[in-house]
């Protein structure tokens, strides 16, 4: 018990198992209930929602666990990759995109794409001109000569 409380990784993992158990329980209860279909929109079953939560909690555990390892540049990739999977689960199932008109998903993805353009171009730019900046107490990158780069 102490170990679990001391170590939050295990806390997350145990939450995940708890929710898995809750899924089973709810599934058993719901087995006899007929899920009505609304006039419009789509109703998600509670079992599915619990399954998704379990997966999300598990992925959280995974990303926290990996963060304790030192994989160099790969750390960011794994962290962002797991975050994207978690985000996709939330978007597709909790936010209903799986059963919605595709245009809603297109809007969301488009906003992410344009954000990517913004971040990408800004990053490309700053990475290229940053080494040519004049040394300054606030900048960590010292410049050997004053104004080395042309243009």
């Amino acid at each position: 018990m102490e170990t679990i409380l001391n170590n939050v990784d295990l806390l997350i993992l145990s939450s995940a198992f708890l929710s898995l158990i809750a899924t089973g329980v709810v599934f058993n209860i719901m087995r006899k209930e007929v899920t009505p279909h609304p006039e419009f929109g789509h109703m998600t079953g509670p079992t599915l929602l619990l399954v998704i939560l379990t997966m999300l909690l598990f992925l959280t555990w995974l990303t926290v666990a990996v963060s304790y390892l030192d994989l160099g540049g790969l750390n960011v990739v794994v962290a962002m990759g797991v975050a994207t999977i978690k985000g996709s689960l939330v978007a597709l199932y909790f936010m209903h995109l799986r059963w919605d008109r595709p245009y809603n998903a297109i809007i969301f993805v488009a906003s992410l794409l344009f954000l990517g353009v913004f971040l990408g171009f800004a990053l490309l730019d700053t990475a290229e001109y940053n080494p040519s900046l004049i040394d300054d107490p606030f900048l960590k990158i010292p410049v050997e000569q004053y104004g080395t780069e042309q243009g």
Partner: protein
Amino acid sequence: MSQPPMDAHSDPQALAPPVAAPVEATGPSYLTVTKTISSWAFTLDHKRIGVMYLIGVLFMFLIGGVIAMLIRTELFSPLALITPLFADTVEAQADMYNKWFTTHGAIMVFLVIIPGVPAALGNFVLPLLLGAKDVAFPKLNLGSFYLWLTGAVFFLYVLFTGGLDTGWTFYTPYSAESGTAVIPALMGVFVLGFSSIFTGLNFIVTIHKMRPPGMTWFKMPLFLWATYATAVMQVLATPVIGITVLLLILERTLGIGIFDPRNGGDPVLFQHFFWFYSHPAVYIMIVPPMGIVSELIAVHSHKRIFGYTYIAFSSVAIAIFSFLVWGHHMFTSGQSTTMNIIFSGITFTVGLPSAIKIFNWIATMYKGAITLNTAMLYGISFIFLFTIGGLTGLFLAVLSIDTHLHDTYFVVAHFHYVMMGSGLVAFIGGLHHWWPKMTGKMFSEYWGRIACGLVFVGFNITFIPQFVMGSLGMPRRYYTYADKFEGYHQLSTMGSYIMAVGFFLIAYYLIQSLVSGKKAPANPWGGNSLEWHTTSPPPLLNFHEVPDATDPYDFENLEYDPVTGNYETIKSA
């Protein structure tokens, strides 16, 4: 009543095809149905909201225009002419000048041109074009208007307390340290940004969800395509200026160290943030006016628009490409060479869709039955002025040329040609085109044409010398200049006065039409989009009988009745 046309297809023995009864007002219009102030202040009717926006936008245009006249008068001579009336020292006079061009720019960009066509005209016309009763979210629409009003109040506050002298572009580090009313101005921009976002959101949903049966995407009037493309830009780009002004406010107050080098920040990053919105913003300013021009040219040439699909797709292409070229405002800022080249290259391609539209409009006019109404004259002026504005933009896209022309009067002339000579001109053209529909009154065509001529001639005299000056090296945002530029400045100032007379004349005859203008028929110009199939002005719920979706560019079945001045719809057998 004129005889129906005889052609090889109609049976001479058949009954004459029925002529649709002229649409007459059989009840109160949206203007007269209720008359209390609160019925306007709390209205959910898109037409009333559009009218309120129109009044607000035109009022702010007046303020921005007066400041422009102050600027032009001041620049008549290298010596200070007007600023000594307000300030004693040379430094204070220069500061005064800085405040003038900043507030002129900020008011015109954020309060007049960005909201202008979409909010003032689009709000009125959009549901009518769709045969709908209102926009998708009427309460949000009213909210957008009050947000605009709040932004206007912020800027009026700025005007009266200390002004703003950072330039409308708010570049750091100066904007982080300027002692003027920067934070209220930034808050105004934030609020106006959300007004714009909610308008765009409303329009996208309306166009998606409230088209009538039979009106597929490719049967919509082109103004709707333009509005849709603009709305996409509004929704995606405007939040970035929102976060930019928030971060600038934090930089000023907390010194967070994002944009100001003294706190460890990067001023070029500010420019990236700022122009990521402000470049799509300039397309937000031009694409709806282009939509208006499509309508003006087609209707007043009584000819089907040429290349409908190309014009529709070009609006979408402009919307997408507009997000990829913002760095062309930053060629000399310290941006890396690689990005300079990338942005320059893409900027060349973004001119293509606009050029496609110009060719299509000219092709529409060819062999059309052109009536040179005031609205049409503005449409034709657009084509001429936008060609100049667009081509000079291409000069600025060339890296080597821009190195010399950046921050000179060449740039000033370029953007006035596209924003004012094209954007504002089309706005006024649209205002004249839909004036009868909005107000139920006809204005004087005679004075309309004269005013259009004054504006057109005055505009060119104002800004062509500025192209020349700029290429000779006259910098922008300077309160004084070398003597060699004096002639150009004087010419430019004189042109601005001619333009001002033109604008006041427009105001005069439009207001006069409200008082004593002729009653407008339902379809004074012979358009076939759905707004012309209801009374002028429309009833509260837009249509007495909701018409079926028409082909908006089919003018075959319209017949002019000289008695009523109305174009009657003739239903062919």
